[in-house]
């Protein structure tokens, strides 16, 4: 299982990473906000996920709130505000 994490657009380029797989949920991570904090703690360039940066999160292909639960087996995506249309 584990957690699949995707990055898109400018955020993908900044992080130099399109996709990664965590073997399981990191300790203390249970929702979108805590996963974001955990990733940000890796330091540069992951501070692109710091609080105050405009980042949207989708959990299982649905836009998430900070409190949206994340559990083993989920797909979580981080991306900038969308600009389609």
């Amino acid at each position, binding site marked *: 299982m584990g957690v699949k994490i995707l990055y898109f657009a400018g955020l993908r380029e900044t992080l130099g990473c399109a996709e990664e797989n965590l073997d399981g949920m990191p300790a203390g991570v249970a929702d979108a906000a805590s996963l974001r904090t955990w990733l940000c703690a890796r330091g540069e360039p992951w501070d692109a996920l710091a609080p105050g940066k405009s980042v949207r999160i989708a959990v299982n*292909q649905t836009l998430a709130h900070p409190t949206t639960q994340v559990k083993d087996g989920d797909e979580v995506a981080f991306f900038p505000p969308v*600009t*389609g249309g």
Partner: protein
Amino acid sequence: MSVSVQLEDFDVGAETSALSAGREDVGAVVNFVGLVRGGEGFIAMTLEHYPAMTAKALEDIVAQACARWELLDVRVIHRVGRLLPGERIVFVGVASGHRGAAFEACEFIMDYLKTRAPFWKKEETCRGAHWVDARDSDEAALERWER
């Protein structure tokens, strides 16, 4: 009701006709076509998306529109990949018995799509490439529907 994400262009005439084909209850079709705008130094636009989420997001937007208005058919097409100035990017077509519902639903779908569907535009210009920033006015447009 159907949504497509595709590299290819679409045929506005055929899509419009399909929204009322074989039925006599459609009184109004409202279409939106979005195009790539050119400009000083602008070369092309590349649209990236999140494939696993895109169709789901567009279907959810269409379902919300159908819950709010009496719609007879809805068609959404969004292109991805590299597009040149003047090329079509997006089509939203709404068929209804009356024009009020068709106009409102079409604008609602565009406002949602602009702020909730996972597409990102990267502009190539003669000075390099950059990601297009989201516009506050798009968020403001969306908020009208949430009052």
